[in-house]
């Protein structure tokens, strides 16, 4: 187990290094740089001076080693726009928003999907089951940004129940935080809920055909006990195998939906910096987003062994 963990962590580090390096060099191979777009036509001399100041006049490999060293020291550089805000600071502000959003989305999605999955497994073949199945496929087919827009139109623009956009930190009170995040969290959580609900349904149906379930039932246990302690618990194992994919969907959703609700999280920072060709921020955002993904994969792998003691690496 320890050996597996060490190997897995090493692989994760290599993956992140490879992504950061590939992105770094590809950004420099592709023609067109932000300074050129900003200044070259207006004032070539100023453009050269700015390049020298930012170290962009150096050969790519020099820039690379400098960037790598700084990154290892925990310094991701500065934005090339505005007041040259440090990338660290931008990300430190953005990360809690993205994590808040993902966390809330996950809670909502888990509650919905467990209820829906268990109900539709128990009522297999009825109209209720068909409706749940249809909604689940719908949840996977709807673009999350569109779901977000529709939620804004219904609950913010027409009903005035909730704020349409923006973010309020948890330190300013629970309700402002919650009311800003609930709509984006539903938009982000929908595909996650859909996957888990379908998975719980089929896993519960599979487990309910096992001998030990028949044994449990024949020795007179209540239906409730059979469903929750025997069936559901064993049905969780295959569900956790899709957790990795579901988590990935959740994070991807957050990256997109933040842009609909104008929440300055990691996703919005990343997309805005790509649109502005603000390289230091692009690199920093990609690094952190990659880190989040790789760390989640690692966590899910470890979770397998906790839930299913039969799995030993």
């Amino acid at each position: 187990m320890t050996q597996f963990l060490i190997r897995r962590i090493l692989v994760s580090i290599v993956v992140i290094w490879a992504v950061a390096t590939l992105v770094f060099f590809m950004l420099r191979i592709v023609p067109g740089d932000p300074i050129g777009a900003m200044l070259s036509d207006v004032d070539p001399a100023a453009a050269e001076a700015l390049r020298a100041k930012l170290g962009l006049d150096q050969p790519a490999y020099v820039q690379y080693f400098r960037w790598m060293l700084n990154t290892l020291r925990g310094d991701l550089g500065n934005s090339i726009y505005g007041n040259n805000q440090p990338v660290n600071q931008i990300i430190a502000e953005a990360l809690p928003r993205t994590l808040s959003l993902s966390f809330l989305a996950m809670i909502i999605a888990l509650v919905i999907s467990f209820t829906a999955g268990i109900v539709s497994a128990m009522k297999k073949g009825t109209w209720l089951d068909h409706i749940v199945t249809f909604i689940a496929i719908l949840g996977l087919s709807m673009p999350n940004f569109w779901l977000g827009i529709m939620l804004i139109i219904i609950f913010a623009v027409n009903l005035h129940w909730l704020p349409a956009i923006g973010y309020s930190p948890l330190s300013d009170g629970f309700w402002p935080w919650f009311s800003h995040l609930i709509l984006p969290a539903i938009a982000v959580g929908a595909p996650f809920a859909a996957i888990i609900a379908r998975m719980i349904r089929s896993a519960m149906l599979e487990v309910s055909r096992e001998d030990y379930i028949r044994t449990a039932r024949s020795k007179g246990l209540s239906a409730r006990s059979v469903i929750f302690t025997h069936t559901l618990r064993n049905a969780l194992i295959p569900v956790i195998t899709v957790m990795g994919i579901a988590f990935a969907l959740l994070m991807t959703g957050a990256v997109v939906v933040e842009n609909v609700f104008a929440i300055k999280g990691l996703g919005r920072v990343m997309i805005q910096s790509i649109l502005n060709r603000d390289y230091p921020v692009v690199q920093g955002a990609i690094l952190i987003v990659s880190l989040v993904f790789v760390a989640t994969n690692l966590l899910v792998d470890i979770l397998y062994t906790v839930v299913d003691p039969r799995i030993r690496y």
Partner: protein
Amino acid sequence: MSDMAETAAELGQLDRGYEPARPRSRWLWVRAFWQRKPAVLATIVLLVILIAAIFAPQIAPYDPNAQDYEFLEAPSLRHPLGTDDLGRDLFSRIVYGARISLFVGVSTVVLAMIIGVVLGLLAGYYGGWIDTIITAYVDLQWAFPNFIIAVYLVAVFGTGLTNVIIAVMLAYIDDFSRVVRGMVFSIREQQFVLASRAAGAGDARIILRHILPNSLAPIIVQATVGVSSAILAEATLSFLGLGVKPTTPTWGLILSDARTFFSRGWWLALFPGMAITVTVLSINFLGDALRDIFDVREYD
């Protein structure tokens, strides 16, 4: 999952290793498909969308970029789905949008499939250092969702239709090569392949006559699912401003353009989103049916 078992039993495949596909079961496949009404309905819907895309100039009542003085008009007989802030006919824009969505969705996945299948065959069949290199690359991509890979690539290549197609195409390669590599491993040592080799068949013959036909089912299922997710990816990229150039009528961009006017025109939000959802939903129903019929296990 239970009706899946019935179909499989009907096809006599329940205790299969991977037997060579034979035409004997072809009509059974058609019948199994016909019994799945959601999938049949989905196919009809997709055909309608395809026809709309092909005959867009004949079907759309207006030029998709023609501006009129009727700004932000609610749906009416003149403009069945209303107009946008520049007075452009929403129905015409959505019909033309189908062209880009379907083109991007299908072309990226077909290209990714070709490259991915070749990589998967090479890795699975030859093994050794070829396998090591290909698998390292594929595993690198596998660590991230396809959409995130596409965003990274657009960050590098820049926006625009061609770049989006390249980015999405590259992002989907790993799905195919993983499936194919796994299939090759399970088929390579089967009796009929060994027999064929003993009879003197070369690599090319074994790959083309035995391995590829028997990997076809999971490839088709993967491609179907891929198209729906590639359509979503293009719509999302365009919505975020990372996709096609402005004024191009695509579903994602129509939604993005209309963002500031949603409170004054619900139709601008509703219809383009419905176009995306109905298309993706239909493809997903089709993919589910194919998965059941071909008895392809969802891999983890």
